[in-house]
């Protein structure tokens, strides 16, 4: 009985993220359009796009290898698993034992590895440019994530998301400089990882400035649909991660009643909406930065994460 319930909650969570992901992309696009005084497409347009792409034929380059064909599914699978590990509306999930921040970083890292390989597989110049830029960003973004993990793990005494979330709502947490630094750092790395302005521009038509879009430029049909869904999932994942780590209020505890689950879902939706709004406003008021400015941007994030960890050591008197 217990097992069935846990399965149901975990399954519900997994389904929720994958169903919600295109909506998040749609909401961000709609909000950005409204901020530009445009009408913008409907918020459900990403679902329609996915359906349309699913029905289309796949056009493959002659020299595309098996890697090019399997990469979209691998990328989608790893991203989905990573997204499923983040507590969205309830903690104490079935996968909790593995819901480890380091595992999430590793899963996203593998997804990126396959995407970069797929970008180079066909041998077009844009794929190569995209992959090389993506790797430059990744080389800087991953240490930042690890630093954030360190800082949080030192505070909460665990790298498990449920534990950290529980710690963050407990009175023990207090007001800490480290948390502030880790929060800003996570926002910065989240922007870089999800290919948003100012690091990358998801709406650009300029092939020479693309990073993520350049890698998926050769994809079509269901492959592209799966990749689009994966990148929507990644955006939702980062929003959920920020919500779970820094705004964990309203998460349903393990073995809670249905009411708590309902509150959890409502709080989650509200948090994601706040996140979407903040992202849209931010993307509207800044221009995209030069590609070579990205290391400075992520370097600042790394320093924040590093300082946060260091301050913790100092204050603890190790």
């Amino acid at each position, binding site marked *: 009985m217990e097992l069935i319930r846990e399965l149901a909650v975990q399954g519900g969570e997994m389904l929720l993220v994958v169903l919600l992901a295109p909506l998040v992309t749609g909401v961000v696009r709609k909000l*950005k359009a409204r*901020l*530009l*005084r*445009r009408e913008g497409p409907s918020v459900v347009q990403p679902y329609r796009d996915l359906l349309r792409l699913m029905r289309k034929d796949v056009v493959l380059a002659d020299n595309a290898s098996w890697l090019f064909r399997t990469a979209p599914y691998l990328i989608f699978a790893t991203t989905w698993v990573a997204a499923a590990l983040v507590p969205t509306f309830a903690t104490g999930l079935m996968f909790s034992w593995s819901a480890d921040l380091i595992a999430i970083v590793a899963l996203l890292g593998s997804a990126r590895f396959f995407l970069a390989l797929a970008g180079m597989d066909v041998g077009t*110049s*844009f794929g190569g*440019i995209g992959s*090389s830029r993506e790797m430059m960003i990744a080389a800087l973004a991953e240490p930042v994530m690890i630093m954030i993990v360190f800082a949080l793990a030192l505070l909460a005494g665990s790298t498990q998301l449920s534990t950290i979330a529980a710690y963050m709502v407990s009175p023990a947490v207090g007001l800490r400089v480290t948390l502030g630094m880790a929060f800003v750092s996570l926002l910065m790395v989240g922007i870089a990882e999800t290919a948003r*302005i*100012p690091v990358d*521009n998801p*709406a*650009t*038509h*300029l*092939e*020479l*400035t*693309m990073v993520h879009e350049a890698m998926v*430029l050769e994809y079509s049909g269901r492959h592209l649909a799966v990749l689009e869904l994966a990148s929507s999932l990644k955006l939702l994942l980062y929003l959920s991660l920020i919500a779970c780590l820094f705004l964990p209020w309203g998460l349903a505890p393990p073995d809670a009643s249905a009411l708590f689950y309902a509150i959890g879902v409502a709080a989650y939706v509200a948090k994601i909406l706040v996140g979407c709004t903040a992202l849209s406003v931010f993307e*509207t*008021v*800044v*221009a*995209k*930065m*030069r*590609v*070579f*400015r990205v290391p400075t941007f992520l370097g600042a994030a790394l320093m924040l994460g590093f300082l946060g960890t260091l301050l913790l050591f100092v204050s603890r008197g190790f």
Partner: protein
Amino acid sequence: MSALEDLIASGKPVAGKADGARVVLDQSRWRIMAEHLAGGIYVLSGLWAEPGMVHAALLDGTSGKLAIVSLECPGGSFPALSALHAPAIRLERMIFDLFGLVPEGAPDTRPWLDHGRWSVQHPLGAATVGAPRRQYDFLAAEGEGIHQIAVGPVHAGIIEPGHFRFSANGETVVRLEQRLGYTHKGIEALFRGAELAQAAKLSGRVSGDSTVAYSLAFARAVEDALGVAVPQRAHVLRALVAELERLANHLGDIGAICNDAGFALLQAHCAILRELVLRTAQRCFGHRLMRDVVVPGGVAADLNALAYRELATLVKEIRQRFPDLVELYDGTASLQDRTVGAGIVSPALVRQFAAGGYVGRASGRAFDVRRHVCYPPYDQLEFEVPVLEAGDVNARVWIRIHEVEQSLRLIEQILGLKVEGATHTRVPSGSGEGFALVEGFRGDILAWVRLEAGGRVARCHLRDPSWFQWPLLEAAVEGNIVADFPLCNKSFNCSYSGHDL
């Protein structure tokens, strides 16, 4: 006497008008001219041909005098200007492709407009049927780690086609080479034998965003050929539509440059203002881009009191809203970080290529046809020609911003001019030769036309300002990073259609 006047005096005037007639040079004079061009004594403003003859337009920057000189090439070849003067390279390649005249001693003999896909070779010359496809070799850039990036002619966005071949070292551009000609429409062939009305329409369709400036250049050239005096009211209305066109294009450009830096907010606002201009134009002139309003002999539209009021409201509206956008551009640090210092063109290059418009004026070349080769009604109007020295993307944006302000000022003055009378005069059917230089929003557009008896066009050449701007883009991008190319390119916003003919 200036060197240009000397040169003209040494040539044989072609029968026709006494003043400003075209002169035919001999080969030795042609070579001296090439040396003068290389020395920057006067500048090359155009180079074109007809069967058995090449023509060059020369401009004296200080006096604003424009002259046309010709060289007969009975042997099917002429001494290449490009051997000494780089800006002539692409024009001579175009001449070879269209007419089959060989530029002797040219450093670059590759085809330019002819991609080997036409059914004839040298369509305006011998027109031999069957075109062999030749391999097109891009210029080499050698070195360790240098790789090539081929972009276009089909792009991810909906823009005109052009091929860009980058040789890059990582992200840094070592060399950019353009390949154009994908929008070749055979404009010059269509002009041959066209009725005047038909030719006027055609001139307005060479480059859609500059339709007013092109039809104005053509109309002025025809009027020059036939000695037609246009009524004053027509001059005033022509300036009005020309300034409206400049206003709309500059507003669109400022937004588009910012959008290419990932700042869509300014584009959204600029697009609203541009749309206001276009809708007002639609109501006042019956066409959003004011196509076919300017015709030889005058203008084909007139304004009533209501239209005057609409235009006054438009100017007021833009005056009110534009300063906020300028402030947003200037005050957004992340945007300034992209535009300042990107894609610098040196003043020396701009002078050598005689690049007009915002490209020239952003790099210190103070040349504006409206001021320096003055044509009516600009002699009666007050305006400034903004000039900056920096030569980067930011400077080209600022030139546009200042020109928007100047255009608003001009429109206000034009609306205030109470000139009554006819808007059109009958164009007699005669023969003759004429030319005109007109300031479009991109820069100076040159029109040269020869009418044959019966009033048909025998030969017409329209030279887009982009001929002398495209090569500078190659120079501007060098040393920049690949990802900054779209931004530099947009700040030039050269015409593909006008250039490809």
